[in-house]
């Protein structure tokens, strides 16, 4: 019996029991659609994060306190996180060649109040250069100045979310005084809106103030959370990292050239992007595996249906054997049947998954982009499910004794 005949017989068998075939396909359809949707969320998030990170400036460099622990490293003791001081900043300013802009950063979060409105926000203590590094612009008013830094002036630039939360539509925020943790800050500028980032964080819910002000008056600390810099160009990022490393080692009196005893970590945006993307890959994988389990269950469903089908068709199997079908041919027939169910289910699942990714996920503001490999993967998995879970029922059919099978009622 050639494979074409077998295919015909199997298709007939699947088609003659439409409802049952459809129900056993349903598991596969949902499973595959779920896998594709998950992959698409993963891929979509990765792409949007990538876009965002590169929009922030690919020449961005971040210096953090503490030794390099790699992504997800162990927590270090608090004193190790207090290594970036004003002296470091001054030294960088004095000696920088490949570094363009520098801004120490001190951040805090809490309630911000104006009149009887209040909202929670993060405050970032920076220098005006921070806006250049981040490629942010002030839309109304001005940014605070070097002078303000010098005087630890109680001034700030705020994002549009803060404006709408505290002032509403009718009040001009410029010149008004808001209170962050009871410290009064005069609004001198409003940032251009940036919207949400892919983590779902509102980038307009920020207050930027002179770092000296935040450090002394709000956070009450003598060290920086980090120092943000930009290299002259993206290509010079490595030179800039080297330069900053040397400066900080001198400043911290570290003789060791290997980097093992460094008490700071410098990351470039490119590295960040890599870390992000590998983190997202892990997340995607976990999502995919979770969805994959539903495929496993669907496979068991197919096996169940096929076992019922084999038992129901015992007489037919016996007859086919009596007229010359070998066990192999019978088992291939049932195997093809289960593959037809799983692959047809897979096709509908892929369509449903693509549909959901393109039309449903965007409604909920989820980033999505179906990676083409996920389609091929799903197909492969469906064929595998058909074979693996069709095997036991097929073997059961093949091992039947023709005369016993024919007598089966």
């Amino acid at each position, binding site marked *: 019996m050639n494979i074409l005949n077998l295919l015909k017989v199997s298709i007939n068998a699947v088609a003659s029991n439409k409802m049952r075939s459809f129900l056993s396909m349903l598991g596969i359809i949902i499973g595959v659609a779920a896998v594709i949707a998950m992959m698409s969320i993963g891929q979509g998030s990765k792409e949007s994060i990538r876009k965002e990170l590169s929009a922030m400036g690919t020449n961005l460099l971040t210096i953090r306190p503490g030794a390099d622990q790699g992504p997800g490293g162990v927590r270090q003791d608090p004193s190790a996180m207090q290594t970036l001081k004003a002296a470091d900043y001054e030294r960088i300013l004095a000696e920088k060649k490949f570094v363009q802009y520098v801004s120490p950063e001190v951040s805090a979060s809490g309630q911000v109040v104006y009149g009887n409105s209040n909202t929670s926000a993060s405050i970032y203590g920076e220098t005006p250069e921070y806006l250049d590094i981040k490629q942010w612009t002030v839309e109304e008013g001005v940014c605070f100045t070097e002078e303000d830094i010098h005087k630890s002036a109680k001034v700030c630039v705020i994002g549009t979310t803060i404006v709408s939360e505290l002032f509403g539509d009718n009040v001009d925020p410029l010149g008004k005084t808001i209170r962050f943790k009871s410290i009064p800050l005069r609004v001198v500028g409003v940032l251009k809106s940036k919207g949400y980032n892919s983590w779902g964080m509102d980038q307009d819910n920020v207050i930027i103030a002179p770092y000296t002000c935040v450090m002394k008056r709000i956070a009450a600390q003598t060290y920086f959370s980090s120092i943000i810099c930009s290299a002259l160009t993206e290509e010079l990022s490595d030179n800039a990292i080297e330069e900053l490393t040397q400066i900080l080692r001198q400043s911290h009196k570290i003789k060791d050239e290997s980097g093992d005893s460094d008490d700071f970590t410098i990351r470039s945006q490119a590295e960040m992007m890599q870390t992000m993307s590998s983190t997202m890959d892990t997340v995607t994988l976990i999502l995919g595996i979770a969805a994959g389990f539903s495929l496993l269950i669907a496979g068991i469903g197919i096996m169940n249906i096929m076992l019922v089908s084999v038992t129901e068709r015992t007489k*037919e199997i016996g007859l086919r054997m009596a007229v*010359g079908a070998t066990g192999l041919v019978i088992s291939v027939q049932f195997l093809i049947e289960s593959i037809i169910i799983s692959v047809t289910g897979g096709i509908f699942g892929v369509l449903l998954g693509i549909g959901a990714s393109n039309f449903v996920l965007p409604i909920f503001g989820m980033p999505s982009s179906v990676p083409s490999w996920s389609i091929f993967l799903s197909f492969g998995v469906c064929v595998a499910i058909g074979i693996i879970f069709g095997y036991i029922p097929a073997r059961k059919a093949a091992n039947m004794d023709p005369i016993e099978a024919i007598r089966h009622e």
Partner: protein
Amino acid sequence: MIDNNNNKDLVSSPDEEKREAKVVIELRDVKRYFQVGSETVKALRGISFKIYEGEFVTIQGTSGSGKSTLLNQLGCLDTPTSGEYYLDGVPVRKMSKNQRAHLRNRKIGFVFQNYNLLAKTTAVENVELPLMYNSKYTAKQRREAAIKALQAVGLGDRLEHKSNQMSGGQMQRVAIARALVNDPTILLADEATGNLDTRTSFEMLVLFQKLHAEGHTIIFVTHNPEIAEYSSRNINLRDGRIREDTLNPHIKSAAEALAALPKTQDD
């Protein structure tokens, strides 16, 4: 070839003079017991005979005497509990499952007592079934052979009827057509005319006699003693043993008998 002269345990065969012909089937003390719960049903209690190429053998016997069980052995569908079955000189017991399947497909045509047609399947598809497992046939050849076989049993106008849209007699004829379609050398029929009216059963008998004349070996289980008059040999079973094995010196012509039947109005 099995030398049949030194088989002393054979029931004395009535056709010793036919030694020159080829032995297609030889049973030697075949027993078939079934275990039903704690009880042993002895369906065949030691059957020995030879069937020569081109014989038309009818097997008779009371219900439960073991006719179907015997036919299943001959059709390579079942294996004896003890004893040997040689088909064309080859012991069936030693054949692999696949070899037996191949034999059933190419050499043997089997008409089941209860037809065993595929449900919800058309007559022509039912008849095509054995050829589906023969890669020598193309789809077109298969269809042609099936139509030819159905025409031979007088169902040329019922090709696309499904098995549940046919009468018992029609289903029986589809089953006969299916057994004929692979042009088997051995045709085994279990009550192949049991459900047919006199006229149609004579038509089938004419067909079997024609196949016999063409050289096919036919083994035909029947309850109707009259049919034995149209075969060349009759084996009578009782209680799983051969009671009688006789040659028929005066084979009647089914075609003549059919012509002599009064014409019926209801067609």
